[in-house]
């Protein structure tokens, strides 16, 4: 019962805020709405027992990436009257068509799925599911190669950013 209520709240929140991201005229409003949407997603993660994912969602997206977004938007300080009214172009029409198509494909797939026997019942899940320990364990055993490669990726990102942003050679 309580779970259903929370799910409805979070799901509607995620949908509503995502729509607000698109509708909002001011980019800062869009960014903050996106943060709210991340919070709702994190709530859904918690309900799926993926607490680690939830915390990382907030930590990385809401706490780091979107802050930089807002920082840059504030630095640019776009005023309301500088924002052009959106026009519906042919690209947007195609995008809407493609988005609708993808939505229906996924929705139908999930609908076809929901009766299948392959779902694992909630109570067969281990106690530690979704917590830090098993995820950390997986990261340094099964997924150690991509995990270590991500370190190189970050290094390349930093070096690349410095190369591009440097004032003088």
């Amino acid at each position, binding site marked *: 019962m*309580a779970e259903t209520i929370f799910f409805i709240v979070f799901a509607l929140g995620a949908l509503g805020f995502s729509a607000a991201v698109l509708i909002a005229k*001011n980019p*800062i409003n869009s960014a*903050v709405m996106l*943060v709210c949407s991340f919070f709702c997603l994190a709530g859904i993660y918690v309900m799926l027992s993926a*607490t*680690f994912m939830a*915390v*990382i969602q*907030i*930590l990385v997206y*809401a*706490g*780091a990436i979107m*802050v*930089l977004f*807002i*920082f840059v938007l*504030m*630095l640019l*300080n776009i005023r309301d009257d500088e924002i052009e009214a959106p026009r519906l172009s042919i690209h947007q029409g195609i995008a809407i068509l493609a988005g609708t198509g993808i939505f229906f494909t996924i929705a139908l797939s999930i609908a076809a799925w929901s009766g299948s026997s392959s779902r694992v019942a909630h109570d067969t899940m281990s106690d530690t599911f979704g*917590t*830090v*320990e098993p995820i950390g364990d997986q990261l340094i055993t099964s997924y150690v190669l991509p995990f270590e490669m991500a370190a190189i990726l970050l290094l390349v990102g930093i070096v690349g950013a410095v190369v591009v942003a440097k004032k003088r050679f």
Partner: protein
Amino acid sequence: MLTDILLILLKIVAVVLLFAMPIGSLMTLLGDRKQSSMIQNRVGPNRARLSIIPGLGRLPLVGIPHFLADGLKMIFKEDAIPDGADRTWHNIVPAMALFPAIVMWAVIPFHDHYCTGEIVVQNYRDICVEGQTRNFFSIANLDAGLLYVFAISGVSVYGAAIAGWASNAKYSLIGGLRSSAQMISYEVSMALSVAGAILIYGTLNLNEMVVQQGHLIGGWLPMWGIVVQPLAFFIFLGAMMAETKRAPFDMPEGESEIVAGYFTEFSSMKFAVIQLSEYVATVFVGALIATIFLGGWQVPYLYGDGFHFGNTPTAALELPYWAVIALRIGAFSFKTIFILWLQFMLRWTLPRFRYDQVMNLGWKIFLPLSLANLVITAFVVAIL
């Protein structure tokens, strides 16, 4: 189900309204007003009187009536919103600032799990023989508690940033920009400096961290964070002070340059709420540092059944469980207030940094030091 919810609500009320908020407002106001006046060799607030209450009418009460008067004044002031400001955000922002400051308290443990029966002390840990009520002295005993704190403290940037942006004023905008730049910069060294402690304790759960700090090195030295990670303690303290935008890191509200920074254009209770959120965040810094580095609720040598000197099965001085709990919560409060006091001493004795100094300190001193600390800790942990 219902009792669970009621219990959680009760705990929230207890932690927020009886601990964080009172200490936040009372202590910080006292510290900001009375302690600063002592440091600066002046008298400080002493005129307001509680003349309604008989018997107290003539006493200055170390300035406490002042802060009650402040509250009254704030409530009755006009709420001014500048022309061209984004009214919606201007109204929401104080809540956005206060929200993370309060929500962070959810994972702070005030005591270990409550043992329902006999307690045996083994290897510096309380073992509950007849089971325990988990999660009794904290609102949520999260597995990733420390990550949660970082996540929420990352979100707390929004309050200041949006406040600066929504005011439609130049000083406010500069304040907001400064605050977000500063908080992003210091988050890095903040998280990295604690990584060493995480390696040592092998957990992100704050209560488990505190439990492990009950260990005695060589049978006499408590394994507090400050003992095993002294460098991290200072980096973390500095980074946290920068995170809460307190002097000497109060660039975002440097009154000599940009009036009051991002909350220049806020008045009445909205101003009060933003101020209060900063104070509560300051108290939280105290609580978090006490938890990670000062042994949290641990009292040295005190375990579930009394004082033990060394790794002994029986207590040298037995105490009833309620007394132990009281001592421990008292110790935690004391540590929190001590760190708070330390922050005020720093705030009122150090001059404000310049902007470039703040950035240099964060990126060129704190970050390399915390990385070095992490590497050395990792080696030591791997060897031992």
